[in-house]
């Protein structure tokens, strides 16, 4: 008997990208997962996508719905039916909302992986305002600030559809080359980088791109806005700005010019620890070698100054005219099915705002709860929150001050979790649901590259009784708010595509729906696209250097630098006790946040987390390369392995984020041994727009682990 063999075209969901995949199935088992050469990502994948098969056939996966037996965290579970699991969750949430009000229930998710539409729609459909997402320190600040400044979103034009590629790239606190593809794909970026003249790296440490950079600005963590303002100071003083764009298409140039006078290069050099001449050189390079793009990541968003960090970067783009011209930052025309979160937002938002978002207009607009406030209220015993359903997230690992997050969340009356694997948070749940892997699901992947959605086509049936995110939310939604949900997943997917006038079956065959090449256009502000007679979709019709929206919110309409809550300058007393600046954002190409540590091909690449420190620092502390060391802040201490590393300032160390050890025993699975958030603070003041919390710029001390 010969083997039966078939190939399925699908889309990788291992991160925020949208990479085309071909999966080969032999005798019902996936034998090969590789890039699809005929996709927009031309056959390339990253290690995470290429290892997909080790998720599907991983013996640690959750296979059946279970309910807790005995104490929380006791590790005893009883297998139950989906019917019982969903009925229990639905009736608990309903009862809680009836007895204690809609704010007593929260729905959470981890980083979006093309299931955001379901979590958000579900939250809205059941009538709670508590959408608990990590977005307020990751990507939402970018969306919010780009929205009020430019009136849309901005993406790097790496595609050459306007017959021009970026001449100068700035990689700003971001490793687009290997990690989190917010709005972009590394494949596109790297192809464009090959054609560029300059790469400016703005990062506290030498990232993987450092060897390719013409210029490295080794800024102090937490000083992004100051650096951007300093660069603008040079650009304005030397009259290097794009005169025509600034004159015709920006609002508030005079006010911005006044503001940047407060940031002369000498002062900015003192704030940022970047030598004066490098700031000048970077400013000239970016202003003169055009077009250019800036990629900045969550490192400037996990900050008490998240909004202004982005505003400063956006003003830098506007001054240099790097908006909407070919090879610069462009607001793509969406594919025909329209932005998929609009599908989730079809359901009106509840009247009440989410817990803790009362003072944060950005959170209210995006319909989110402020997680840190909720945790603090739970710890104090003053919270309204009683029940939490969370999918694809381990909040102990991903929110600030892990130990307090655990203390707070364990006070909830009810927790349900949906995931591929048991994790340190799920261990304390009342019900745990098994989720299907992307190779086992039919779905529509709409991540941040706005011009395309991809078809996630089921390659094999799910292991055990795992269900797709889509099915879980549809079945759960039907039990609470049937008017907003569908007969089955296929009908739901059809509904998501209705604007494009196609069905799921058609889309599944097509593989993707995209607007590329001649279907995109540039300089849309010179046409009627956003406004009759031209302009941007902002209050003034121009790019708002001076933000009318910020003014209306009672906030500073111009960008400014704000010291992190903990820093050598804001808390000099603390700096004496904790004499190193701590950057916590380190990401690896083989992991995506807390994911993949159960996958041997990926774990083998790096089994333990590294803390990078300069050789001088290591020598002073008596620390050798490869040794486990303690890193301590006022919140607690963790261990990581010392990597003696020249590519960092001797006054700064960098640790890796999101670690836990699935091989360690439960319930905590090594959660508190190495995780960066054991060290981070969830204390206010938060960012005034979005409630973002400072995770990436803290103070710490480091010492050897004594045997």
């Amino acid at each position, binding site marked *: 008997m010969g083997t039966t063999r078939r190939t399925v075209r699908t889309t990788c969901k291992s991160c925020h990208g949208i990479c085309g995949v071909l999966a080969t199935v032999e005798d019902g088992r996936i*034998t*090969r*997962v*590789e*890039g699809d*050469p005929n996709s927009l990502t031309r*056959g*390339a*994948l*990253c*290690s995470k996508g*290429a*290892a997909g*098969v*080790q998720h599907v*056939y*991983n*013996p*640690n996966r959750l296979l059946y719905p279970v309910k807790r037996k005995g104490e929380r965290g006791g590790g005893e579970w009883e297998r139950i039916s989906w019917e019982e699991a969903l009925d229990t969750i639905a009736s608990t949430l309903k009862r809680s909302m009836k007895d204690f009000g809609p704010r007593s229930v929260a729905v959470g998710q981890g980083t979006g992986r093309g299931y955001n539409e379901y979590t958000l729609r579900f939250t809205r459909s059941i009538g709670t305002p508590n959408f608990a997402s990590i977005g307020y320190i990751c990507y939402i600040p970018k969306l919010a600030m780009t929205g009020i400044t430019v009136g849309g979103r901005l993406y790097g034009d790496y595609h050459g559809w306007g017959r021009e590629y970026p001449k100068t790239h700035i990689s700003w606190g971001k490793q687009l*080359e*290997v990690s989190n593809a917010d709005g972009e794909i*590394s*494949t596109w970026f*790297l*192809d464009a980088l*090959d054609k560029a003249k300059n790469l400016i790296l703005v990062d506290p440490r*030498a990232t*993987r*791109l*450092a*060897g*390719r*950079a013409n210029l*490295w600005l080794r800024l102090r963590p937490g000083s992004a806005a100051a650096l951007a303002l300093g660069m603008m100071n040079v650009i304005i003083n030397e009259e290097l700005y794009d005169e025509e764009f600034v004159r015709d298409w920006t609002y508030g140039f005079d006010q911005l010019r006044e503001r940047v006078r407060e940031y002369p290069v000498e002062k900015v050099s003192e704030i940022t620890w970047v030598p004066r001449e490098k700031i000048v050189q970077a400013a000239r390079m970016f202003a003169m070698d055009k077009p250019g793009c800036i990629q900045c990541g969550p490192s400037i968003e996990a900050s008490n100054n998240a909004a202004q960090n982005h505003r400063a970067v956006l003003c830098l783009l506007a001054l240099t005219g790097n908006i909407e011209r070919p090879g610069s930052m462009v607001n793509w025309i969406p594919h025909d099915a329209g932005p998929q979160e609009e599908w989730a937002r079809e359901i009106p938002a509840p009247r009440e705002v989410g817990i803790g978002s009362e003072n944060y207009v950005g959170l209210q607009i995006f319909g989110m709860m402020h997680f840190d406030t909720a945790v603090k209220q739970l710890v104090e015993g003053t919270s309204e929150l009683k029940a939490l359903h969370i999918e694809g997230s381990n909040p102990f690992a991903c929110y600030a001050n892990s130990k307090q997050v655990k203390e707070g969340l364990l006070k909830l009356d009810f927790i349900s979790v949906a995931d591929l694997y048991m994790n340190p948070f799920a261990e304390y749940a009342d019900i745990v649901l098994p989720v299907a892997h992307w190779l086992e699901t039919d779905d529509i992947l709409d991540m941040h590259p706005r011009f395309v959605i991809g078809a996630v086509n089921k390659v094999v049936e799910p292991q055990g009784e795992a269900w797709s995110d889509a099915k879980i939310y549809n079945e759960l939604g039907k039990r609470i708010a049937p008017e907003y949900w569908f007969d089955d997943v296929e009908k739901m997917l059809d509904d998501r595509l209705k604007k494009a006038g196609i069905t799921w079956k058609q889309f599944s065959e097509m593989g993707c729906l995209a607007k590329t090449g001649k279907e995109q256009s540039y300089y849309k502000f010179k046409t009627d696209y956003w406004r009759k007679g031209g302009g941007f979709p902002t209050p003034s019709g121009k790019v708002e250097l001076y933000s009318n929206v910020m003014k209306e919110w009672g906030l500073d309409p111009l960008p400014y630098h704000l010291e992190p809550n903990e820093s050598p300058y804001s808390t000099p007393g603390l700096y004496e006790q904790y004499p190193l600046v701590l950057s916590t954002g380190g990401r690896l*190409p*083989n992991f995506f946040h807390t994911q993949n*540590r*159960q*996958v*041997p*091909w*990926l*774990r*083998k*690449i790096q*089994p*333990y987390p590294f803390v990078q420190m300069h050789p001088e620092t290591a020598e002073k502390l008596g620390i050798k390369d490869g040794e486990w060391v303690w890193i301590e802040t006022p919140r607690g201490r963790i261990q990581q392995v010392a990597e003696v*590393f*020249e*590519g960092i300032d001797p006054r700064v160390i960098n640790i890796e984020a999101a670690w836990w*050890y*699935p*091989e360690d025993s439960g319930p905590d699975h090594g959660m508190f041994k190495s995780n960066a958030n054991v060290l981070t603070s969830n204390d206010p003041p938060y960012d005034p727009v979005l409630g973002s919390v400072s995770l990436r710029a803290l103070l710490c001390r480091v010492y050897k682990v004594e045997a």
Partner: protein
Amino acid sequence: MKTQRTIFIDTDKCIGCYACVVACKAEHGLGPHPTNPPVATPEGPELIRVYRIGPQMRGDEVYQYFLPIACMHCLDAPCIAACPRSAIYKDGETGATLVDDSRCIGCKFCLWVCPYGAPQFYEGKMKLCDQCLDRLKEGKKYTACEAVCQARAIYVGPPGDISNRIGRKAAERIGSEKHAGNKQ
């Protein structure tokens, strides 16, 4: 025999993402395989391995690059000469250096003599990059490592093509320096 293919790594482009390492294991079905419970330090062969050199500061400049290394399929391969069981041989069709599992005794002498540390050992036998000959037979154009590479840093082909690639790049570089002012 066709012209033998050689792997070429463009170290100006590689960003050390390890996708080639994983794609190679996936293509060849190599371990480490998932276990329950998982292990922190799973063991397994790496037919292609990635090394990070640097970062070192040289004045103001960062010196750093990444280099994936696999079997170079040497024309006069020292491993073939060293193998006491004649288990390593050249494929008549492609010139690739291959291992006959049935003859290999896992003595590791090939590892002693290989200038690249290429031989790997798995389940008692030596394993080596086979230039994805099975993929070629299926009609696929690229090896697994070359196909997966986001940075387009890997190329597997005849030495003449590699020479032309490097030559073209040099020509472009020289051109951009010498003729930079012409078109502005």
